């Protein structure tokens, strides 16, 4: 068997080692993505609120 | 709106909690007409409105449109009116627009939410979640759903509670426009609300005598 296959085979324990690393990668990447989306969404909402707030305050002064 | 132009009730009796709240009460409201319910608290104004909405079956007498009694086809009756009670049914997590849109979409596939919000001056709060709103603003959201889906008859139970002068004027304008379009209004209220043209029904005249228990 080529080096690659023996490596992937993990001495017969491939069924446990790769899922373990897979879960860690999945959960850490998932948490990072969720956090990024959380920040992006709140940034966008904040941007969206500010101009309107400024425009409203602007119109409020003129009236 | 279909051409039903008369909603009436004859010889209505309401017996609740061991006493006659009112008895022998008849009324009629025509296209473009208005009926103002007056009377002290507990004289049955709310009960009568709930009876008209079909929530509370009359102990005696009947309510009907031209084409028949309301209890025979409840769903047809429900198509024809909006009922605004004391509770404002605004969901804290939904935005103002989502709240109004939900109710309107149950009646028309394409509700005119924007216009309804503007009519009550809450279009600027369109995407503010309900939990931030004050009592007055929640009230306006509740009233906005009435405008978003036009119907023939409005049943309004103290519509002007918790509303400031500006909002009361908006309610008056909405009612006037509704009547101009041939709509009908039955409202229990202490303020004028521009219903001077309509007739007045004073619940005090129909107080039933108390049941003698012994």
């Amino acid at each position, binding site marked *: 068997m080529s080096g690659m296959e023996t490596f992937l085979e993990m*001495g017969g324990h491939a069924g446990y080692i790769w899922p373990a690393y897979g*879960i860690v990668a999945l959960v850490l990447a998932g*948490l990072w993505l969720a*956090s990024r989306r959380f920040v992006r969404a709140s940034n966008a909402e904040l941007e969206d*609120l500010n101009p309107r*707030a400024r425009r409203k305050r602007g119109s*409020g002064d003129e009236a | 709106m279909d051409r039903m132009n008369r909603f009436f009730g004859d010889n209505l009796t309401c017996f609740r909690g061991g006493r006659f709240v009112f008895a022998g009460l008849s009324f009629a409201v025509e296209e473009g007409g208005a009926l103002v319910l007056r009377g002290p608290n507990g004289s049955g104004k709310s009960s009568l409105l709930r009876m008209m909405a079909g929530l509370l079956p009359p102990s005696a007498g009947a309510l009907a449109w031209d084409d028949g009694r309301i209890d025979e086809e409840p769903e047809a009756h429900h198509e024809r009116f909006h009922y605004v009670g004391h509770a404002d049914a605004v969901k804290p997590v939904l935005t103002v627009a989502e709240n109004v849109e939900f109710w309107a979409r149950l009646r028309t596939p394409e509700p005119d939410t924007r216009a309804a919000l503007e009519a009550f001056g809450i279009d600027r709060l369109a995407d503010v979640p309900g939990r*931030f709103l004050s009592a007055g603003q929640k009230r306006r959201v509740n009233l906005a759903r009435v405008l978003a889906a036009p119907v023939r008859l409005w049943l309004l139970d103290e519509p002007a509670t918790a509303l400031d002068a500006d909002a009361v004027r908006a309610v008056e304008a909405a009612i006037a426009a509704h009547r101009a379009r041939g709509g009908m209004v039955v409202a229990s209220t202490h303020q004028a609300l521009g219903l001077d043209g309509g007739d007045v029904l004073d619940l005090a005249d129909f107080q039933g005598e108390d049941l003698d228990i012994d």
Partner: protein
Amino acid sequence: MIHRFANPTRFLRLADRIQPWAAGLTVVLGGAGLYFALFSSPADYQQGETVRIMYIHVPSAWMALFCYTALAAACATALIWKHPLADLAARATAPIGACFTLLALATGSLWGKPMWGTWWVWDARLTSVLILFFLYLGYMALNGAFDDPERGQKASAILALVGFINVPIIKFSVDWWNTLHQPASVIKMGGPAIHPSMLTPLLLMAFAFKAYFVWVLLMRMRGEINAMKIRAVRLRQVHAAEATSADAGAATGEAR
């Protein structure tokens, strides 16, 4: 007494400086750790290749405990010194800690099957870590259960402090009860009892996870600060709408 970092802008400037470093460290240390863990460290004479799971299981477990300690510290700061950012730090830490606890349980179970022949056993160490996972979820549920965020933060801070008793139990569970789970072999009085070639990937991964923690924590803190600002603007918006209509009413001289 306003803390130096109390106003968010100063904190955000600091976060902007640290975050890229934390990100870089995570990637570098993580990459090196993976390389050592999978390629250049020997298989264990007893367990064979499954020992490689240790390089992610142990750091996850350490992080699970570390995050809860950080959470409890932030909650204590929030309760005692009323530090506004501490509440946000606690809210930001909890999900990260919960994820690491979940990873510790999952990788542990995947390591347990080949080594002990079963995915799960009701052993003192495993059970107390499972309870830690419930404490994290309980904290997050209680924190989000109130409309008013301050109420939620105060209530969940107390829960986090009460739950802290579980951390020493986890730490010493292997010593107090005869557990299937092996006792501590790195942080021990007599120094690490592991062969250096296995120690390097372990420590590399551990530091990579710490850097990852700082990176995601700063991100979530930024989100929490934004959420706080959004709430403030929404409230101002509502009061402004209320005020303009009231003025209009007053302006036209109509009594309300």
